[in-house]
């Protein structure tokens, strides 16, 4: 599964994307965030407060309780601020 990070999430983690293979008990985006944060370091710093994060699964915006089963690409990022 490709994981993408944007804005300050990307900066804190230190990379814009990485490949991950979460275990079967990582069911939702929120589970994925917790699982990635458990790596510590930049991941922990970027992902400590899920309430400040938004996500997309296969490029569609989703709530953090959305499932990630079968996803090819999950993006994790702050609220958008374009325009």
């Amino acid at each position, binding site marked *: 599964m490709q994981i*993408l990070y*944007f*804005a*300050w999430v*990307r900066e804190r983690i230190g990379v814009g994307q990485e490949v991950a293979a979460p275990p079967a008990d990582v069911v939702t985006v929120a589970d994925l965030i917790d699982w990635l944060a458990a790596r510590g370091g930049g991941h922990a710093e970027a992902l400590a407060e899920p309430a400040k994060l938004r996500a*997309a699964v296969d*490029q569609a*915006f989703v709530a953090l309780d959305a499932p990630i089963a079968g996803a090819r690409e999950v*993006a994790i*990022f*702050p*609220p*958008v*601020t*374009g*325009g």
Partner: protein
Amino acid sequence: MIRVVVTGEAIDIAAELASLETTGGGAVASFTGLVRDDGGVAELFLEHYPGATEAALARLAEEAVVRWSLMGATVVHRVGGMAPGERIVFVGTAAPHRAAALEACSFLIDRLKTDAPFWKRETRGDAASWVGERGSDHTAAGRWR
């Protein structure tokens, strides 16, 4: 005509408007957002989610075309670094009548702010900071749902 562009280049609004004027709609409306100085911003940097951003903008443009029977909808968003006074975003619409063109223009810019994956980082002096979301943007976008 639907035209969606995410670009690192300066936005040529004269060319975008000229293109909307050829669609056959007698009413053309536009909105241009400029980088604000906001008391000392030296640079604004815009990051986006390649692919997902263009798709989100195209969905908004298609929704506007259907809802207001537009002959044209154009969304051009700048990304990368830019200076105060430069154009960040251009939204333009062409319709048979003025109310449709202007309303659709409001819809596109309001919904773009909440629905398209862009992130702004401001640099003031040596300090760069990511811009936070604004509740008023969600209120504005909510008008159209």
